[in-house]
Each structure stands twice: as C-alpha cells, then as structure tokens.
C-alpha cells in the first residue's frame, strides 16, 4: 500500500491525462470530416455532337422568304458538317420562333435537349441587299452567348453571309477560330485515266461555287494559296517541263517564277508574310530547296545535299521550314531554320513520309505516310512526337489545313482502271471523315485563309 500511496500523486494526473487524450483525436477527426466543399474529379466525358436547334430564320419581308430558308439550311449544314454538332429537327420544337426579338422560353428548348439555340432573321431590300441578324443562346445556362450580330451583303453573296453566321456560332461554342467562310483551290480532273485533263479550279470550302482558273490545255499540279488568299502558286507543264507560276485570283493573270534555263521548279509554297516563296529546284539530277523573294533578287539555296529535298512548308511564324528528304535512304521529314542551316529529323516511324504541311496553329505538322502498301494522312507535333494516323486507304495524299488548323482536306484515289481522285476532309481528331462534293474528280486541294 505504501509504495502505491507514494505513487498515487504521480499516477493520478498521468492517468487523468491519458484518459483525456483519446477525446482529442476524436474531435479533430470530426472537424476534418465536416469542413470544406465536396470535391469531385471528372475525367471521362463523352465524344458526341452537340445538339442545337435552329428554327428557320424569320423572314422580315415577303422577299426574304426563300432567302431565309436557304441561309438557315446552309448555316445548319456548316455546323453539322464539322461532326461537332447535331441539328434537332423542327418537328421536335415545342415553342415556335415567330419574331427575332421574342423572349426565349428556355424550358421548351431544354425539354428537347437543345444545348444551343440559334435565332435569326433575314431581310431583303428592294435593291437586293440582304441583311441577316442572329442571336445564339446557351439553353441550359439560360443566357445568350455573345452579342447578337447583323451582317449585310449582296443577294448573290448569300452563301458567304450564311458561312459568316455559322462561323460566329461555331467559334463561340467551340472556341476555335472560324473556317467556313473560306475557299479551296484544287485540280479538277475530267476524262479517262490515261487521258486525264486537269484544270485549276476554286470553290467554297463546302464544294459550292466552283469556277475554273485555267483551261485544260496543259497539266497543272499542286496549287497553293497565298496567306492573303489573293494569289495562287501552282506548277504547270505549259512549257514542257514543270515550272512554277503565280496567278492573281481576281484577274487570272499569271507569271512564271525563276525562269532559269535547264531547271525544273515545283512544290512551291508562300511564306507566312506572302513576300517570298519556298520551292524545290531540280538541276542536274539533284533536287534542293530554294527560297525566292517576290519583290526581286536571286533565289537563295537552303539545302545542298546529294539527296532529294522537296515539299518545303513554312512554320506559321516563318522561322522554320519542314521538308521531305531521302538522305537517310527513305523519305523522312526534317525541320531546318528558314534561313537554312542545321537540319533535324522529326519522323522516325516505319515507311515513307512526304508532303509535310505546318498547321496554321503551329503546333502540328500533317503529312502523307506510305507503309505496308497503304497510304495514310497523319499528324504529328512539330517536334515529331505524338504521331497519329488519321486515315488509311489505297491512296491518300496531299493534306492541307483549314484556316483554323482543325480540319485537314486531302486527296483520295480509288484503285483500279476506273479509279478516280476525289477530295475528303477529316477532323484532326481522326473523326468525321467525309467526302467533299466537287461534282467530279478532283485532286491537290489547298485551303485558303479565312476570307475577310
């Protein structure tokens, strides 16, 4: 008893302290469990088109009835053509839009699962002036996206008005820069395979409004738009050997570039500032890359190797050039400074790489790849990483970027004696492959910049 009694004064507080300790963690644990918002991380979404409702634009006068219908359909076709949008049929609509300024009944549109609503009106004046105004709504947020917009133009230019409307909607919803109001220059082909007649042609991006820039008297190849869209470079066999020509789109006037004797020039592209042209020059059996200032002066040689260097393309900042070379034994892609100099190889996969094109965004390079008997259109990052093949077929070739760097158009040719080339477009995600209706065989597409 005595020893314990001595210890008691010491033990008592110690015991008390021990007993109290357990309560403390319990309290802190409670506090932790009850503080702060609920945190959820979402990493899996769905990849599917966004449903939108586009009631036929309101015709504000009698003359605008048909025009309103056409413009509405074209806007809807532009959006659905991207593969990112899906139009909800008017038969599903609960409320009708009878006036441009009538208030939006969001619940009616939510009920049919429309995520975006486009309301517009069209007016055609007696002088033939067309005015389109529209508003875009985020149905589930219950608010307008951006300001209403009004566009005007001539009656004959109604397609451009529709494309502008679609561009604005597309850009506001996706955050991408627009590209519907753009054109494509290409080679229109007619006749059998052994007597193919080729003409330069230009069309709206969706295949409408085709017009021809040259007649079929000589073979033309690989047209390229200038950064401003006012000129086209192309290669013609007019003189019997391939030569580069530059044409004013508005007047169809043309002139030959670099008319030295005894050389062949081909595969031209403009620099981003439109002041110079980079191209391939073949002389004495060797092909190298040259750059020519359009304001005058002599061509400057960028590569000097015994191998074949061709298909140069500027980066959008004008600082570098990507091109194709077989210096390793098979065609591969290389990047060098725009002034020439150190060359770095960026493609290392199996097969043959060709026709590299730098994206307008600058982050990607599109190319043609031939491997195991098939052709592919692919993209890789500018440093050669993340190579991804978007298509595969008997013959795919010649990619060209949409002005926003989001879509690639290319030529696909079918096999056999009856095979014919046609134009296709594909999203850079590899989805939404679709044929462009050019009304006939077509090859070598080149996308223009966005029209002003």
């Amino acid at each position, binding site marked *: 008893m005595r020893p314990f009694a001595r210890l008691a004064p010491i033990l008592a507080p110690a015991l008390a302290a021990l007993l*109290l300790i357990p309560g403390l963690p*319990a309290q802190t644990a409670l506090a932790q469990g009850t503080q702060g918002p609920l945190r959820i991380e979402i990493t899996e979404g769905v990849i599917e088109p966004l449903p939108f409702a586009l009631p036929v634009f309101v015709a504000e006068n009698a003359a605008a009835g048909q025009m309103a219908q056409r413009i509405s359909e074209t806007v809807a076709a532009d959006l659905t053509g991207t593969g990112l949008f899906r139009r909800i049929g008017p038969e599903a609509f609960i409320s009708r839009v009878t006036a441009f300024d009538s208030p939006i009944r969001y619940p009616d549109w939510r009920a049919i699962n429309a995520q975006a609503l486009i309301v517009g009106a069209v007016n055609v004046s007696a002088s033939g002036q067309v005015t389109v105004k529209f508003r875009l709504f985020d149905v589930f947020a219950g608010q307008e996206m951006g300001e209403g917009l009004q566009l005007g133009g001539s009656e004959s230019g109604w397609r451009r008005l529709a494309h502008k409307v679609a561009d604005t909607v597309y850009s506001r919803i996706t955050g991408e820069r627009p590209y519907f109001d753009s054109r494509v220059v290409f080679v229109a082909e007619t006749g059998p395979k052994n007597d193919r007649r080729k003409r330069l042609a230009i069309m709206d991006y969706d295949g409408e409004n085709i017009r021809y820039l040259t007649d079929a008297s000589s073979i033309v190849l690989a047209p390229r738009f200038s950064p401003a869209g006012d000129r086209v470079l192309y290669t013609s066999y007019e003189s019997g050997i391939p030569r580069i020509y530059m044409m004013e789109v508005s007047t169809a006037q043309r002139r030959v570039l670099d008319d030295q004797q005894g050389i062949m020039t081909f595969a031209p592209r403009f620099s981003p500032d439109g002041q110079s042209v980079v191209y391939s020059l073949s002389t004495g059996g060797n092909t190298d890359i040259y750059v020519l200032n359009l304001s005058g002066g002599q061509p400057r040689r960028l590569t000097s190797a015994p191998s074949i260097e061709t298909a140069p393309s500027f980066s959008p900042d004008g600082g570098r050039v990507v091109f194709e070379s077989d210096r390793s034994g098979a065609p591969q892609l290389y990047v060098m400074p725009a002034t020439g100099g150190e060359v770095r190889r960026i493609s290392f996969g199996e097969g043959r790489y060709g026709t590299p094109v730098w994206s307008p965004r600058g982050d990607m390079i599109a190319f043609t790849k031939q491997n195991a008997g098939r052709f592919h259109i692919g993209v890789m990052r500018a440093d050669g990483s993340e190579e991804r093949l978007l298509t595969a077929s008997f013959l795919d070739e010649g990619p060209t970027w949409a002005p926003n760097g989001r879509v690639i158009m290319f030529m696909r040719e079918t096999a056999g004696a009856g095979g014919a080339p046609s134009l296709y477009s594909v999203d850079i995600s590899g989805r939404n492959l679709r044929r462009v209706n050019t009304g006939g065989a077509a090859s070598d597409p080149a996308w223009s910049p966005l029209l002003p």
Partner: protein
Amino acid sequence: MRTGFIISGTGHMALILWLLLGGLFARVDEPEFTATDAVILSESDFALLSQPGPPPEDPAPAADAPPAPEEAPAPALPSADDAPTTAGVPEIPETAEPDSAPDVSAIAETARPEVASVAPDAPVSPPEEPEENAPVTAHDAPPDSAPAPADRVAPSPAPPPEPEVRIADSLQPARQPDESRTATEEVQQETAPEAAAPEIVTEAETVRDAVARASPRPPSRPARPAPAADPPPDAPTPESDSLNDTIEEAIARANEPADTTPDTTPRAFGPPLTQGERDALRVAVQTCWQVDVGSEAANITVVIGMSMDRDGKVVNGSLKLLSSEGGSGRAAEIAFQAARRAILRCQRGGYQLPVEKYDHWREIEMTFNPETMRTR
C-alpha cells in the same frame, strides 16, 4: 492488501493503456463513426417535436453506438413487426442494460422507457420511410446482397428509436475509439468497405435510371431521421460486451466534457458521402460532359464551384470558374462552358444525393480533366 492493490492497479493500468493504444490505431476509422452520428442528428430534429427529455441521457448510449451496426440488422429481423424498424428496438434494451448497470443507472433506466415509447412511434414512421427507401434501394439494392441489406435496414428502423438516437450521438464519437479497441473497430471496418464497394458499382451503373427518377426525392426528406436512429442502437451492444464496466465508467467520466462538444458538431454535418454516392454524382455529370477532343479546350482542366439546394439542383447563378490550367483564357472559357453545360444539363430534376448528408454537398467543387480523353 498490497498485492491485491498492485494487481488491481496494474491490471487497470494495462486495460486503460490497452484502450488508449487501441483508440490511437482506431482513429482512422473515426470519420466513419462520425458519419453514423450525423445521421442521428437529423433525427434529433424529429425527436424535438416528440420528446424533449431524451437528449440529456444520450451521452452514454452514444459512446456505445458506433460498433453496433453489423450486429443490429440480424437481431432486428426476427423481432421486428417490420423487419427494419423492429430490429433496432430489441437490441436497445440489451445494450442499455450491460452498459447502464455499471456505468450510470440513469442512462439504463432512460433507455428502457424509451424503448417502450418507441414501439408506438414505429408504425407511424413506416409510411414515410417507404418513400425514402424506394430511391435508396434503387441505387443500393442491385449491387450486392450483403452490404445492401445493412444500408436498407439502417434507414427504415430509424424512426422508432429516435429518442435513443440522440443519446447515442453525443457520447459516441469521442469514446468509441478508446473503449471499443480492436474488436469493435474491426467489426465496423468490415461493414463499411463491403457496403461501399457494392454501392459504388451499382450507383454508377444505375445513375442514368436514377437521374430520371430524381424528381421523387423531395418527398423523402421527412423520412431522413430514420437512418440516424439505426447507428445508435447498434453501437451500445458492442461496447458493453467488449470492455469492463468500471473502466468504461472512468473513461466516460473523463471524456464527458470533451464528448459533449464534439457531439454537437457531428449533428450539424452528416456522415461523409460514401464512395458510391460520390461516384454516382461523378457518373451522372460525365455522361453529359461532351468533350471536343480536337480543340484547344481539350488541353484545359477547369475547376468549377457551385452551391446546391436540397433537391440536388444547382442554385441559380452559383456556378463559377474557380481555376483553370493548361491553356489560354479563351479556351479556358470554352472549357468552362462545356463543363457548365454538363452540370446543368444532367441535373434535370436534381442530382441523386442523400438528403440527410446535405451539409456535405451543399458546396461542391468539380474538376473536369480531359487529359485521358485526348488520347482516345
């Protein structure tokens, strides 16, 4: 005398230390216990309407409550008029007696009268409960038989025990870890994982169906008290069995001040959402999150904050972009809009969230990370 005293002293010390150490290890589980307490809190509101007396008594039962959950369902079924409701009742008397005899006479007495009074209440509550149960079962029932019954039982029995529930809540959070030690802890742990795992799968899978049925939720609110009641009845039994009465008394007295304060806190907040409940919300939103994988916005992770009302719907105008990472302001805005559409579009009648845990999801921060989408 000495030897007896020393033996007694060392024995008690050993027991106390054992309890304390056991409690330390057990701390990890504590949040779960608190969770049961939270359920109880909601019942308290109900109890206030019916019985003012019980609250003071609660502290002792509360301590016991946490361990019980597993045992409760089995006994309940045999005794029950209604399987869920009666289950809680029979256990209560048992638990109360062992604990109360040594610890506090008053507690034991109060517990018994409550049981009697509870019985009449039970029939009243059942009609309300079905409403709650219906949505709950829809989520939980399909996945696994074992875990599902435990959850179902809990919600239904709650109404009758209401008075008891209060009692249990106050003491439980602090004491249980210490007293219950390994034995009680193990029991609780096992139950929690089982219930959680099956629930997750089922809720996630059934989310779409649940979303459509979301509208019925509002009516269920009255029933909420029921789930709270279950945990307390269960808790008392395990504690009494596992530990000596004297030790419990001493610990209880020492902890009482600490326990009372924590109890109020858990009442305000329910138990945290289970993984299954969180997954249900996640899946519900992601089925509406449309990612444009080719866009710049697909490189951007956005964090969105929002306030929720009790129907599981986003409070108007509370959606806001908290932060973004990986791209420019324009693309971040697009990523935000896409995430906002996902949240607003899939809520429909309201997200399926447990109303009794409203305080846990009143504020939500949702992160939308498209990284894995890009590579598909």
